[in-house]
């Protein structure tokens, strides 16, 4: 049975050419970039090339890119780093109710250590209201962190507008762009952000590597302390193969982006329409158009998500319910609840996230298979009976 992978938002396979490019840096060109002899300088040159490629992808300057171990570390570094560096100015952080746990939990950590946080509510599409941001800013606010696009429902925030409000108030602005980098056009200067997180494995780079854009002049206390790599902004021996992989993934994403955005938007809209058509009582989560080109998220009423995922898996289809991180946990998605869904609707959510290897046939297969799964589960559901 052909496996159909529709969970690209959880992680993506590294592209074969990305893995190829990484290979020499494991073995022959394995030097430590801090070493001055030839092996070391080869590795350093590779890291520098990757930095240029990542900078190009997001319109930044090389020296504004700091490599990290992934999106989580980038988010932690941004929040903790800016908070601690600006402690004398204030202790208030603004974020949204639908951030990834890497931001939410880091906020909570800071809240336990003398900071206060405002968690902006969102509307039913998952959108933050710029007015709410304006109102939340106090004289103590040092940082606003709102994600570029949400990993569960795909809603794209009006970051440029939010960042402008922050800038006018003299507050630093961070955006978690883990779901958008390499997926949709993105320019840090147009967005006007001070910090931006990305993660390689979300756009066909390897797992365990990411980057944080830090606009020149943004004060930041280092998060990882040690040998002073990355111009003292992130210590630890550089993950050279990983960084090389991130660099090439960034380069390829930049070159292919326009075509992919068009192609995936078409497939996405076909899948959404098909699901609505073929299954009763399905609602689309997130916004119809301010949406990642590859995200489909629906709530299928009266059935629970995991049981759908398992049945889909039995048919060779990989999808998810809520975010990958919270599957295995019992709480319904905080994102869907923040959008106003009832608990049972949140528990009945399905996310299909499309990607590079998704084809029209895969969409058709999902549309063929899912209605049967839903019927079977609904026949078992005590919720449906009580609604009849």
């Amino acid at each position, binding site marked *: 049975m052909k496996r159909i992978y529709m969970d690209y938002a959880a992680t993506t396979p590294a592209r074969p050419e990305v893995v190829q490019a990484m290979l020499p840096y494991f073995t022959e060109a394995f030097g430590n970039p801090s070493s001055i002899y030839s092996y070391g300088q080869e590795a350093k040159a590779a890291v520098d090339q990757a930095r240029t490629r990542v900078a190009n992808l997001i319109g930044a300057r090389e020296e504004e890119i700091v490599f990290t171990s992934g999106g989580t570390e980038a988010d932690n570094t941004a929040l903790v780093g800016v908070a601690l560096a600006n402690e004398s100015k204030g202790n208030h952080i603004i974020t949204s109710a639908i951030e990834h746990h890497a931001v939410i939990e880091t906020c909570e950590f800071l809240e336990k250590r003398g900071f206060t946080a405002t968690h902006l509510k969102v509307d039913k599409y998952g959108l933050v209201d710029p007015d709410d941001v304006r109102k939340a800013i106090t004289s103590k606010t040092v940082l606003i962190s709102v994600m570029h696009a949400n990993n569960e429902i795909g809603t794209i925030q009006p970051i440029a507008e939010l960042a402008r409000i922050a800038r006018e108030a003299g507050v630093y602005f961070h955006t978690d762009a883990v779901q958008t980098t390499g997926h949709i056009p993105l320019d840090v200067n147009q967005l006007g952000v001070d910090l931006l997180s990305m993660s390689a494995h979300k756009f066909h780079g390897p797992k365990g590597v990411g980057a944080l854009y830090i606009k020149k002049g943004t004060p930041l206390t280092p998060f990882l302390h040690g040998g002073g790599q990355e111009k003292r902004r992130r210590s630890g021996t550089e993950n050279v193969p990983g960084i090389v992989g991130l660099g090439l993934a960034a380069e390829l994403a930049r070159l292919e982006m326009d075509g992919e955005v068009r192609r995936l938007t078409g497939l996405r809209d076909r899948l959404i329409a098909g699901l609505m058509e073929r299954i009763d009582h399905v609602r689309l989560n997130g916004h119809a158009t301010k949406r990642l080109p590859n995200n489909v998220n629906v709530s299928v009423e009266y059935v629970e998500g995991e049981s759908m995922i398992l049945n889909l898996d039995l048919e060779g289809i990989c999808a998810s319910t809520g975010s990958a991180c919270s599957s295995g946990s019992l709480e319904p998605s905080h994102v869907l609840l923040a959008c106003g869904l009832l*608990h049972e609707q949140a528990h009945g959510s399905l996310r299909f996230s499309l990607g590079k290897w998704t084809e029209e046939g895969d969409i058709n297969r999902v549309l063929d298979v899912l209605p049967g799964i839903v019927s079977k589960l609904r026949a*078992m559901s005590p919720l449906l009976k009580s609604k009849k």
Partner: protein
Amino acid sequence: MTNAGAIYSEKVMDHFRNPRNVGDMENPDGVGHVGNPTCGDIMELYIRVKDNIITDAKFKTFGCGAAIATSSMVTELVMGKTIEEALEISNKAVVEALDGLPAVKMHCSVLAEEALKSAIDDYLSKSAKR
């Protein structure tokens, strides 16, 4: 390659794919209703009792794979048991009969046990009233 649903034992997946005794029951002698939408699992268990013996059981469940499999298993386990024997069926027995459950899913077996107890309670209180 790991099999589909590899977080679960084969037994769990069998009961998940082919749940036994799904459905409603006309005029059940006892009904158990446990769980709620917040926790994400809702189970309804119906039993038919004749001469103190459970002669039939049916369930309906909204929930994850483990919730469906434990519901299915508990209906199998009670079938033919006396009320006293059925009350002895613990969540552990359900888990064992399913060849184990992942730690994060243990609560489902507890729910299944509770559904059974609640159905029996319902039967006992109804028969006391009669």
